[in-house]
């Protein structure tokens, strides 16, 4: 039996104390997004996740989806759960009020995506794809298309898909072969075969809206010749009612490593009626406007799985009696000590937790900037925030999902042999986490995106959006005696990141392989610094809350506040262990995790030669 409780306390800390999400209320369109209101929304969604979706996670994995004659049936309970999810109006969360959305901030949606992924990743894929399709239509569709399709998608009674992949092309979408032929009435006829289409067919909704990448007859080759089409499963009549079945059928579903409750479909388009979304031959760029949001969402999948894995590992480590603490038994009254006393088990738990909480903090910061980028009245602020989001998106996607896989593996390790047994439930987390490293652009491609596109964009402007605040923070706190233990290692790691960046920029210009060969290592180095920047701030806030502020000598007792003083300072006694935990985690992060930047730095400086020396035939 697995457990899950949404990390609402940590989310509240991030929103209220770290990123000051109360500023959202001042943005036009977000007048109702008060901190209180956001809390309430996330609390209720937590209930849905814990009580409705999580209980279906393991059974959904065991059963998987069923396929027969073009029809897909989801695992027992999924359809009913989706109906409740829709009835409560959750699909509308961050959609535009003009199409009946609730218009909540993207920050909220991002954190919601973490909770949904923790509770039931397979289930969460269905609404996530609808959101992706919604976004593409919302940003690039004509008013007519928007009016005809968006309200039903926002409501959740129609779902969406993203149809990019074909058998011979995944990463390299320039190879897309699906064709679209213009018709006299302005519509198109789409023909081709797509594979691996999530939610391509299912029993949740009465209609499914496919967004399909295809080629016009006279299109140039490569990615510049790809257009985006909307192809509904059932045609939609003038009055909004459903008409004939369109020419798209599901040819089968995949058996796969994880997320087995999510249908992964072969979709065959045969002269299917479609509508152009956006401009001809601009499909790739249109797709990318929603891809950023989707990639952040996938990052949250990694984070969500890391969180639920941690919670289960923690519970097990406290309960499973095995061996004795080395110095002396810590629980002599019991037959043996619980696993939690063992240093190596603690190492694993803290590795999970420090990364998870650091990642969540970074998500909060990115989320806030996503909202600033879309809603702030000042174009300069919008640009700055948008730059930061663009820069950090590949970092979030890749690092969070790598962490998701590592953390779920550690959870299995902590469970020992029981973790490897299906019934325990934690091995599912590993299998589910694995896909997040692949879809929405495999993680290797994220590294290339960071190094090849984002670093050089606008003469390094994006990069400065991150480097400047970090440099400013380090400078402002360089002589702070209390924060020294965090600031000093961060400054060192940041220096490595700057040097590595300079090397990649110089060498990469000369030989692109030099940049590409170290791109994944560079992304990881970047992520470790970014999380460090979050952790130093979290440590600062926590010290202050506990009355151990830099100028708070009165309460300081050799750097340790007394329990009473801490309680008095925090106000709410249940918060004392929370802030103490944060400080302990911050120390673990800076002393045990951040040093990886040193080896990454060495790896990056070694450049491409060791990777490229061996000829292809030598493998």
């Amino acid at each position, binding site marked *: 039996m697995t457990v899950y409780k949404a990390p609402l306390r940590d989310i509240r800390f991030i929103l209220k104390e770290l990123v000051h999400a109360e500023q959202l209320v001042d943005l036009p369109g977000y007048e109702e997004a008060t901190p209180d209101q956001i809390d309430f929304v996330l609390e209720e969604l937590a*209930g849905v996740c814990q009580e409705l979706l999580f209980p279906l996670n393991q059974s959904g994995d065991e059963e998987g989806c069923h396929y027969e004659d073009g029809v897909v049936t989801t695992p027992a309970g999924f359809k009913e759960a989706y109906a409740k999810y829709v009835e409560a109006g959750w699909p509308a969360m961050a959609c535009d009020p003009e199409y009946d959305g609730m218009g909540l901030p993207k920050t909220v949606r991002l954190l919601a995506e973490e909770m949904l992924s923790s509770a039931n990743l397979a289930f969460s894929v269905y609404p996530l794809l609808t959101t992706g399709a919604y976004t593409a239509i919302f940003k690039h569709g004509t008013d007519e298309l928007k009016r005809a399709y968006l309200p039903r998608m926002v409501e959740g009674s129609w779902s969406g898909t993203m149809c990019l992949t074909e058998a011979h092309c995944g990463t390299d979408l320039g190879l897309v072969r699906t064709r679209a032929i213009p018709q006299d009435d302005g519509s198109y006829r789409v023909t081709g075969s797509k594979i691996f289409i999530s939610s391509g067919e299912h029993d949740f909704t009465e209609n499914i809206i496919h967004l399909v990448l295809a080629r016009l007859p006279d299109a140039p080759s490569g990615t510049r010749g790809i257009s985006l089409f909307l192809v509904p499963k059932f045609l939609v009549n003038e009055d909004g009612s459903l008409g004939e079945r369109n020419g798209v059928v599901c040819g089968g579903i995949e058996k796969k490593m994880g997320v087995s409750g999510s249908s992964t479909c072969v979709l065959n388009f045969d002269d299917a009626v479609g509508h152009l979304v956006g401009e001809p031959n601009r499909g790739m760029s249109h797709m990318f406007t929603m891809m950023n949001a989707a990639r952040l969402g996938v990052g949250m999948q990694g984070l969500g799985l890391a969180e639920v894995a941690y919670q289960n590992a923690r519970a097990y480590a406290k309960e499973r009696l095995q061996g004795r603490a080395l110095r002396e038994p810590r629980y002599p009254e019991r037959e043996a000590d619980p696993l939690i006393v063992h240093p190596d088990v603690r190492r694993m738990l803290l590795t999970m937790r420090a990364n998870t909480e650091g990642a969540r903090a970074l998500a909060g910061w990115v989320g806030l900037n996503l909202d600033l980028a879309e809603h702030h009245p000042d174009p300069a602020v919008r640009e700055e925030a948008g730059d930061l989001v663009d820069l950090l998106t590949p970092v979030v996607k890749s690092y969070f999902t790598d962490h998701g896989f590592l953390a779920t593996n550690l959870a299995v390790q902590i469970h020992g042999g029981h973790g490897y047994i299906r019934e325990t439930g934690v091995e599912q987390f590993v299998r589910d986490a694995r896909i997040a490293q692949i879809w929405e652009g495999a993680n290797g491609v994220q590294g290339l995106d960071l190094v090849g596109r984002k670093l050089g964009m606008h003469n390094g402007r994006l990069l400065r959006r991150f480097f400047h605040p970090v440099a400013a923070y380090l400078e402002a706190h360089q002589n702070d005696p209390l924060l020294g233990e965090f600031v000093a290692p961060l400054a060192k790691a940041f220096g490595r990141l700057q040097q590595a960046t300079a090397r990649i920029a110089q060498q990469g210009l000369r030989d692109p392989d030099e940049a590409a060969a170290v791109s994944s290592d560079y992304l990881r180095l970047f992520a470790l610094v970014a999380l460090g920047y979050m952790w130093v701030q979290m440590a600062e806030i926590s010290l202050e809350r506990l009355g151990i502020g830099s100028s708070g000598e009165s309460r300081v007792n050799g750097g340790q506040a007394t329990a009473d003083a801490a309680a008095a300072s925090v106000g709410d006694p249940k918060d004392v262990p929370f802030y103490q935990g944060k400080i302990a985690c911050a120390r673990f992060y800076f002393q045990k995790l951040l040093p990886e930047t040193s080896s990454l730095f060495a790896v990056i400086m070694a450049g491409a030669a060791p990777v490229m020396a061996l000829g292809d035939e030598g493998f």
Partner: protein
Amino acid sequence: MEIVVCVKQVVDTEAEKKLLAPDWRLDRQSVENVLNPYDEYAVEEAVRLKEAHGGEVTVLCMGPEDAQSAVRKALAMGADRALMVTDPALAGSDTQGTALALSGALAGLTYDLVILGIMSTDAQTGQLPSALGDILDLPVLTALNMMKFEDGSLTVHRQTDQGYVAYGCGLPAVCSVVKGINEPRYPSLKGIMGAKKKPLETKDLAELGVDTARVGGAGALTKVLSTTAPPPRKAGQKIEDDGTAAQRIVEFLAGEKII
């Protein structure tokens, strides 16, 4: 039909409960507090009756200011307005004091029906419905797993060990409902966003005209003398199947009077 639902904020059922000496009050400070899970059924039933017959649902809650979060959840589920009874003098009230305060609040409201949960998950006395009916001098129907309103009167099923007993009753009346009566909805996102805009009034005892001497720890007729944690659960009995497992399981269940 005008309905009042009484709701209590309780300590999260999953939290470890602590009772604090000297008077063994529940420690509500160091844990999360939530809407009493049994009261969700009461709210759901009230909202369904309203949806079927019109009128409004008022949430009534006695508790400290932060109990507002429980009230807000009830509003998000579809109740229309709320009245909080908040007064420092109420701390340490027993069921009698609670019933006095709630009946004082009800005196200022119009209602055809008062619906409560079967009990709170923290103190679990289950006495309030009866205490309230007694003070208000109204019919009391407890442990209901079905409520139907037709032609001006109420038909209900009262759950028993064997099945149910059907009752009919005129209005107004006080009812308490059990878990099986319905499936509480998840508050809708619209409901959640709208809950804060619904009227929420707070009154103290003076405004309600309730005698402070009869409530709170001082006015309580009962006193908790001491508390003892239950003995730890015995280890379960493992039955290995050597061909007689089914027989032995049946014997075990019969021995425990479960079957």
